[in-house]
């Protein structure tokens, strides 16, 4: 955090606190015996988004370039932003009012990665429009996988409620099974397309600049490819193999666990960004 000015740090902390409060509100909506209003939750998420935007503006002003790609932390912030926007829209439009209960805790957890890596700038050559597109589509793709995780969790929770032959208040606060299955499949499809785009942009950037042998064996590239293959296989199983319902939800939930593990692996063991010269 040494390169952050105090104002930027305060804005990030404020965003984190708002998202944390939003996560608590989301869980309260799902599990509280009392009825909870929509207003506080929406206000918290909107507040977090506003602080993130303010951070982005401050960062842009201090470093002279759009705050994406200068460090891994900035990339993660885009992912968090996408997750929060989706949770907000799903809750506000009643499509999945329970979504923040699952998505916002993930967003809060991702802040750990932000604070750990925000002060690790990548090398100068990566501050490039191609790389912006590469990182942005990757983060949005992972955002779709986080949303798929949220839908998968809701689906399993509702299935468990229905299989217990009961109709609890919790079951009534979750979207219908059909909505959850359809939304989960849509998120997987979106995530696979975005991640494919990200990989293609990265490959297009690398062609002619970086030796194939260097980047094709890069740990981070391999891990991203593995992620893509995993989710693409889940999607194929859904549309061609008839894998639906609980099995697909478990694939989505397991997938996110894998993505998190991969991220930690590349961040901690392989020292972060692509080690190209």
């Amino acid at each position, binding site marked *: 955090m040494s390169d952050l000015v105090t104002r930027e740090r305060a804005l990030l902390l404020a965003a984190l606190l708002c998202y944390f409060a939003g996560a608590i509100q989301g869980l309260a909506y799902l599990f509280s015996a009392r*009825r909870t209003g929509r207003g506080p939750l929406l206000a918290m998420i909107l507040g977090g988004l506003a602080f993130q935007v303010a951070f982005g503006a401050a960062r842009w002003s201090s470093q002279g370039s759009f705050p994406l790609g200068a460090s891994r932390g900035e990339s993660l912030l885009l992912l968090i932003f996408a997750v929060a926007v989706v949770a907000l829209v799903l809750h506000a439009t009643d499509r999945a009012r329970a979504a923040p209960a699952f998505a916002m805790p993930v967003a809060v957890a991702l802040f750990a990665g932000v604070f750990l890596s925000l002060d690790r700038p990548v090398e100068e050559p990566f501050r490039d429009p191609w790389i912006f597109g590469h990182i942005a589509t990757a983060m949005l793709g992972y955002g779709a996988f986080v949303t798929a995780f949220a839908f998968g969790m809701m689906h399993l929770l509702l299935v468990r409620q229905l299989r217990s*032959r009961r*109709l609890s*208040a919790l*079951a009534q606060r979750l979207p219908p*099974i*059909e909505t959850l299955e359809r939304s989960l499949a849509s998120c997987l499809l979106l995530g696979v397309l975005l991640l494919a785009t990200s990989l293609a942009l990265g490959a297009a950037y690398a062609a002619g600049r970086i030796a194939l042998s260097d980047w094709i064996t890069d740990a981070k590239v391999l891990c991203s490819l593995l992620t893509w293959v995993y989710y693409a296989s889940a999607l194929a199983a859904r549309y061609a193999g008839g894998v*639906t*319902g609980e099995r697909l939800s478990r694939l989505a939930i397991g997938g996110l666990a894998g993505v998190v593990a991969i991220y930690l692996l590349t961040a901690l063991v392989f020292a972060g960004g692509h080690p190209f010269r």
Partner: protein
Amino acid sequence: MSASPLLAVTGINHQRASVALRERLAVAPDDVGRELARLAAAFPGVELALLATCNRVELYAHDPQGVVDAAGPLAELARPRGVALAELPLYSHAGAAAARHLFRVAGGLDSLVVGEHQILGQVKEAYLAAHAAQVAGPVLHALFQEALQAGKAVRAQTRIGEGRVSVASVAVELVLRVFADLSGKTALVLGAGETAELVVQHLFERGVGELIVANRSPERASTLVQRHGGEWIPLPAVERQLHRASIVIGSTASPRPVLEADVVARALARRGNAPVLLLDLAVPRDIDPKVADLPGAYLYTIDDLHEIVLENLAAREGEAARALALVDASCARFEAKRQARDARPLIAELRRRAEDVRAAELAALFAKVPLDAAARREVERATGRIVNKLLHAPSTVARARAVAGEPDGGAESALEVLRDLLLPHVSRDAPASARPPTEPEESER
């Protein structure tokens, strides 16, 4: 809590009277306005409102003269129907109890099914009818407004209205937990029982797409098919058509299951494992219990539905305490507003008399002392300010004491009341010597 002796309610409801008795006093929704007009002509000056539903007939009355209670207008309501009130098991409440009763009714706490939503709309209709008939005055206006707020608060802040409490509505709620949009869905009914018919009716109210009725003969299926459209198929053809159905309702009298697990598994595979909800309302069961283990199949028996109904009823009862707390808060608010309203005429009269005295003294002064227009205006303004300042404290204290009600069971002396009204800044315990002299001693005049 102090009570207003002028507000009253008298009525009959499902708790005290059977439908045979209630229907003798029933008033059709379209007739409420006409009846109110008739009652208003018989009881001029009395505020009236009539709440008439299938479970209750209640008449609310407020007589500013304190003479007429609700029993008189109710007797007049019953007279053309040939009903004597003595024949009916009525209940009556007066004052704050009448207000509390209406707030409980609006909150669904007095309903046949606790927490039901319909009653709030019916209370609103009763108020609108009284307003349209011009028989609701300021007291009933305030009463019904507070009742509607109480009803909304109970439903917004508690879960008393949540959870379905009939088998058919629970069944439909389960359908909606599985399927978001029923318009493209097909419901398959095996047999044709009464509960199944109710469920189908609810499903069509929610927009279900198609109906297939499987029965031994088309005649048995005719009621459902005629009412909702759809097609009849013989029971042996169910296996071939099962894959079309997203909702399956079992309601035959068959001694053995009509749908075995392997048949359902094949249908699920043909549907691409899209979810299916199976409601087995039959005893003996129509659907093999092993179906519940199939992925994508959700099976509920009639016992499961009854269990859910009982749980929901218990949950509603559990919310009643919190709902009652909200009702009590509404009662307190209504009573405070009523008390404050009572103080207004007194304060207005006090000011009027003060102004009369001021006007008379000014007239006498101007007759004796010639003053130009500017000087007169200044004198009028100064005396006006004197009157306002002198009356400000008594007005404020009177309003506050009206809201607070009688302290200490009314043990205050007239002198203490006068001191509070005219000298609120002086403590009752301050010695007389501590107060500055305001009146000259008799010997000094």
